[in-house]
């Protein structure tokens, strides 16, 4: 070990206010997907659906010329299917909420980062290091939530926003901008809201799990398992709406579509109740597992 007296001097700094101390932790969590080559590859993969839509926009607005037939085909499809029409909210909402590719993207992105956020800290006893600093457990949770939400929103909110900007810039006139601006706010808010709900659910599971891999498995089971159970329940009870109410994925979609103003025949109340109840249940479980006595030996 190095002899003392060579590299030690008094720290001379003013303390940062307590409410700002969780920020470095949020920043660290936000950067988790980008800390490894695999993480970057996963993130890029999750952006593929947005890139595909961007390519469609480029064909539609003639930025990429595959001939009149191809352009006409794209315009025809966009008129037939709202989710391919950049002038309608479905184009942006369904990019994230469509089961394909939305569900795999969500599983990939949250599985590689968010699901392990707290479980990693528990496994390496980092909670003991963190909570014996100038940060409260609530500040810690807030930091992890904000960081995870930030990285998820790069795909679920920033990508649709980038598509909207691209569409507005590539359009022939101001029509695209003026017709889409009124619903843009609600679309982005809806996507942000659903991303926050999924992040919170995922973090709760992460807090309850004893290892990152267990957290990932639990999260995937919750997403896929609840969808499967909802399908079975819908079949048995002959109530198709149960699919959209009892599945974590579809309930999130229902919530997003209602808030974004996308036309849907499914009622919001049961989906909202299901998500709220689940969040409360998992939140209580997480809070019990995150007691100071357990984290600090």
């Amino acid at each position, binding site marked *: *070990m*190095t002899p*003392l*007296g*060579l*590299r*030690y*001097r*008094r*720290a*001379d*700094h*003013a*303390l*940062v206010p*307590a409410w700002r*101390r*969780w920020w*470095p*932790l949020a920043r*660290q969590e936000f950067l*988790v997907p980008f*800390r490894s080559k695999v993480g970057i590859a996963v993130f890029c993969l999750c952006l593929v659906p947005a890139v595909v839509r961007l390519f469609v926009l480029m064909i539609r607005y003639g930025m990429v010329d595959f001939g009149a037939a191809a352009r006409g085909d794209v315009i025809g499809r966009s008129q037939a299917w709202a989710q391919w029409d950049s002038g309608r909210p479905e184009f942006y909402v369904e990019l994230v909420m469509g089961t394909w590719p939305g569900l795999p993207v969500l599983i990939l992105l949250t599985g590689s980062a968010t699901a392990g956020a707290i479980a*990693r*800290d528990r*496994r*390496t*006893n*980092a909670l*003991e*290091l*963190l*909570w*014996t*600093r*100038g*940060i*409260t457990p609530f500040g810690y949770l807030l930091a992890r939530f904000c960081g995870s939400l930030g990285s998820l929103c790069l795909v679920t909110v920033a990508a649709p926003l980038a598509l909207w900007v691209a569409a507005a810039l590539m359009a022939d006139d101001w029509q695209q901008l003026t017709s889409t601006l009124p619903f843009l706010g609600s679309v982005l808010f809806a996507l942000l809201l659903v991303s926050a709900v999924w992040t919170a659910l995922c973090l709760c599971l992460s807090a309850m799990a004893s290892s990152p891999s267990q957290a990932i498995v639990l999260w995937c089971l919750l997403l896929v398992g609840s969808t499967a159970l909802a399908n079975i329940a819908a079949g048995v009870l002959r109530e198709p709406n149960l699919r959209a109410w009892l599945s974590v994925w579809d309930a999130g979609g229902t919530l997003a579509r209602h808030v974004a103003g996308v036309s849907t025949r499914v009622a919001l109340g049961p989906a909202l109740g299901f998500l709220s109840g689940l969040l409360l249940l998992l939140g209580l479980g997480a809070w019990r597992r995150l007691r*100071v*006595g357990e984290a*600090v*030996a």
Partner: protein
Amino acid sequence: MCGFGGFGIELSAATGQGGRMTVVLDGVTIRYGDRVAVADVSVTFPPGASALLGRNGAGKSSLLKALLGLVRPSAGTMRILDLPTDADPRDVRAQVGYMPERDAHLPLLSGFEMVAQLGMLSGMPRRDAWRRAHEVLYLVGLEEQRYRPVSTYSAGMRQKAKLAAALVHDPQVVFLDEPTNGLDPQGREDMLRLVRQLATELGKSIVLSTHILQDVEAVCDGVVVLEAGRVVAQGRLRELTRTAERRFWLRVEPAEAAVGPALAALGVRHEVSGEGRYTVWLAEAAPCQPVFAAVQASGAVVLEFAPQRRSLEEVFLGAVRAEAPVAVGAASAGAAPAGSAVGGGR
């Protein structure tokens, strides 16, 4: 003042704390439901190294948790440095360094990132945290490995990284929980030397919670022994290991000389420890001369006559078995100034 060559900056060895108590507990009781983990503990830790000794479940961890503001005592007051007794726990933790016993690190981060991150969480601005992270990693000897992920460190390197993290915000008080866990003999010696230097050269108050009595003897000036949540012994190490009776190690030649009967005739308590070897007990004020005279009378010569001290192990075992509070010297864990005595832990 002592010079610190690396950056050409001078640092006061006493860091302005002088002989002031840096951690004072007065009648602290900690309960978990109906269970009393710590009962009416009054202890003071002055600048320097002090040990918190006790068996598993004795209340050491509860006391540390309370000092870190993680557990609220049901009775009593605690004061750390100049902070008010009702200070925000976050402000307390910003002034205190803590090295946990368990292997712990921030996942995915390098040693430098981990130490800097923990510095920022302690309230340091980013630039200061980065600067200090480099410095303390150099201090503990991890300067070459600081950009490697901590997950790839050996056990000894992780201990050093934890110590660096405890020091990054330059706390005046540092709690070290089993700092030599998992270290090889050389690493252990280095760690203890560094801890000692932190206390003596930088004037930090070190509170060492450990089971390893040799570590305490190597580093600490003061000791607090906890048993079943109560303080059963506290004081300076030198005072605690001194006995009311003086004990001597006696070796004579020839071995077959009848030294024992000669000592018995004088009324000196003794014990045969081997051929020509004896352990002799004398009262506190009794002179040694009669022992030499007895040996001479038995026709032998003294080869060795050396005083023995009680080992810390004997002190510890005696204290926890008796469970009666023993306060020695200044009655604080370390070299407290006279007049600052605090009653035993009852």
